[in-house]
């Protein structure tokens, strides 16, 4: 049973950099847990606190049922892939990978077996005789990964272990890591700022920003039920569009009014917003690019059709991203249809009121 629990962890670097701000997390046994967030949000620091390389300014860390806050790294039984690899420069790749096993006094032939096994799994067998400085960045990163995976500790900690690999290799390694992890059921905390990686690998994701955890949930939850403007904007490629509108009541239905358009929303949704905020308030309308439809038929008029000006078209092969100008905001529209629009031309878009999010601009929290 290896759970990892962070209990109100705060880390302040003197004089007053708050790297981690009151984080509480419970990571389940055998879970693949991803810390996701932009650069500098405190992911590495959090990981280092779990590893014992950094003492939290406040709070406790538990691995299993044991309070490990005061324990040195070697007694926590964790393995870690460093963001900067940290391969020992004076040891060959083989010795680098074997080092954690040798320190733990594993018999020699067992060490050899394990090292070769993991090396072939990660495709670095031919590199075993080289020194780290003779490797490319991607190769070094795989060696660093091997050094962590060669052990079967209570917890694996991985700090952006794939950031330096090419796209193809990255996809292969993702699958490989995931497979090994599922097989051995080792609780894993995985740091990344790549949301695709997070979505495809995680059992659960914690989205972080500025030292805080904003939301924890499964990839589906994070994607479909973002709780804040930040989470909504961070997940998805391209990210969610945000448009400043005014929430109002017109005749007998609730609307979101932009400068040049108007969207009628369901009464149910409207009532919630009215209850939380009141009418005639400024709100932020969020809609994902894939949830905006292109209306080709010029004749029909229907509710929730808005007219916008095409700005730039980015054809990406299987899909096309159309940047349009709506009010003063650039809105991205994703479509799989083969379409061509001239920049400057007018386009009609359908916004599905069932798939929109409304945020309170003051608190940045989601309203519906």
């Amino acid at each position: 049973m290896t759970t990892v629990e962070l209990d109100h962890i705060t880390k302040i670097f003197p004089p007053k950099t708050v790297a981690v701000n009151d984080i509480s997390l419970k990571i389940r046994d055998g879970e693949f847990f991803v810390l996701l967030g932009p650069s500098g949000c405190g992911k590495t620091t959090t990981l280092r606190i779990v590893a014992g390389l950094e003492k939290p300014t406040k709070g406790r860390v538990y691995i299993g049922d044991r309070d490990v806050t005061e324990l040195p790294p070697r007694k926590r039984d964790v393995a870690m892939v460093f963001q900067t690899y940290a391969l020992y420069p004076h040891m060959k790749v083989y010795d680098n990978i074997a080092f954690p096993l040798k320190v733990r006094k594993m018999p020699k032939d067992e060490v050899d077996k394990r090292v070769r096994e993991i090396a072939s799994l990660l495709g670095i067998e031919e590199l075993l005789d080289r020194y780290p400085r003779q490797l490319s960045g991607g190769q070094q990163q795989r060696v660093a990964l091997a050094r962590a995976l060669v052990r079967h500790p209570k917890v694996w900690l991985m700090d952006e272990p794939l950031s330096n690999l090419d796209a193809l290799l990255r996809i292969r390694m993702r699958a490989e890591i995931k497979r090994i992890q599922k097989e051995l059921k080792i609780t894993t905390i995985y740091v990344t700022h790549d949301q695709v990686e997070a979505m495809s690998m995680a059992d659960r994701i914690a989205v972080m920003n500025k030292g805080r955890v904003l939301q924890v949930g499964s990839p589906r939850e994070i994607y479909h039920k973002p709780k804040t403007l930040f989470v909504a904007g961070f997940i998805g490629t391209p990210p969610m569009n945000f448009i400043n509108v005014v929430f109002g009541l017109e005749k007998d239905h609730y609307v979101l009014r932009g400068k040049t358009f108007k969207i009628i929303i369901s009464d149910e949704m409207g009532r919630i917003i009215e209850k939380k905020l009141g009418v005639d308030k400024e709100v932020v309308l969020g809609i994902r690019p894939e949830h905006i439809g292109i209306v080709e038929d010029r004749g029909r008029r229907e509710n929730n059709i808005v007219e916008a000006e095409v700005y730039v078209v980015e054809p990406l092969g299987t899909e096309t991203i159309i940047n349009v100008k709506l009010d003063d905001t650039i809105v991205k529209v994703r479509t799989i249809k083969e379409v061509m629009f001239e920049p400057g031309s007018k386009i009609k878009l359908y916004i599905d009121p069932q798939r929109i999010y409304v945020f309170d601009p003051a608190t940045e929290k989601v309203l519906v």
Partner: protein
Amino acid sequence: MAVVVLRIAKIVALWTLLVVIALFFGIPLVWLVLSAFDPNASPEFRIPSTISLRNFMLLAEPVSGVPPLMWIVNSAIISTLVATIVTITSILAAYVLTRYSFRGQGAMLTAFIVFRLIPPLILALPIMILYRSWGMMDTIHGLVLAMSALILPFTMMIAESFLRSIPVTYEEAAMIDGCTRLGSFLKITLPLAAPGIATIWLLSFVTSWSQFVLPLMIIKTPSLMPASVGLQFFFGEYGRVEYGKLSAFSILYSLPVLIVFLTVQKYLKRGIAGLVSR
């Protein structure tokens, strides 16, 4: 035509300057070498009529009961001890200074710069006074300890900058891999710092080897003298100075220093450049 003449004149002027400089710096050195091989050496600057190794042979014979070669042996023993003590203590101290943070750290580094620049005589005088009451006058261990302390601020700065240049991440990785904090330093950082440690050992060895003031104040018995004081003692011993033997001794005594500086030459320039800013 005029341009060519000007260019040649320039080169000749540069050559002349360089030759003058080479002569100024070379003459005392050349005299030292010439007289060492001259059985009838004198202050006079001349090519020996017969070149012989006699002066070197004579160094095995006693002067006031002590053969000069023994001073070289003494120096070797003293400097080996000093270099070893200084290297170990300064690496340990630098480890603490670079791997931990504590109050007064900046002040401590500043203090080391100050200590390093104190003229040795300022320390040698009170150390002599203290040694007289501690019964440490004329002892090798007394000399070794004082000499180590004198050199330590210097080697410690080198050790500090060396260890600072090795990222802590390697040690962190080793700690996660199962080493203790100290163990990770010993297993990972120390091997990485090996060239630096060798440099520190060699530099402290030659610094101790050349030191003069401290042994002059502490060691009075000829048989315990290191080479520096031995040379001076030898020089002042008789009415008539035995130039040949003194020069031969000087050359033997200087050789280790020349060899060490040849090996650490590259590091030296970097070290001197490091004095310009923090």
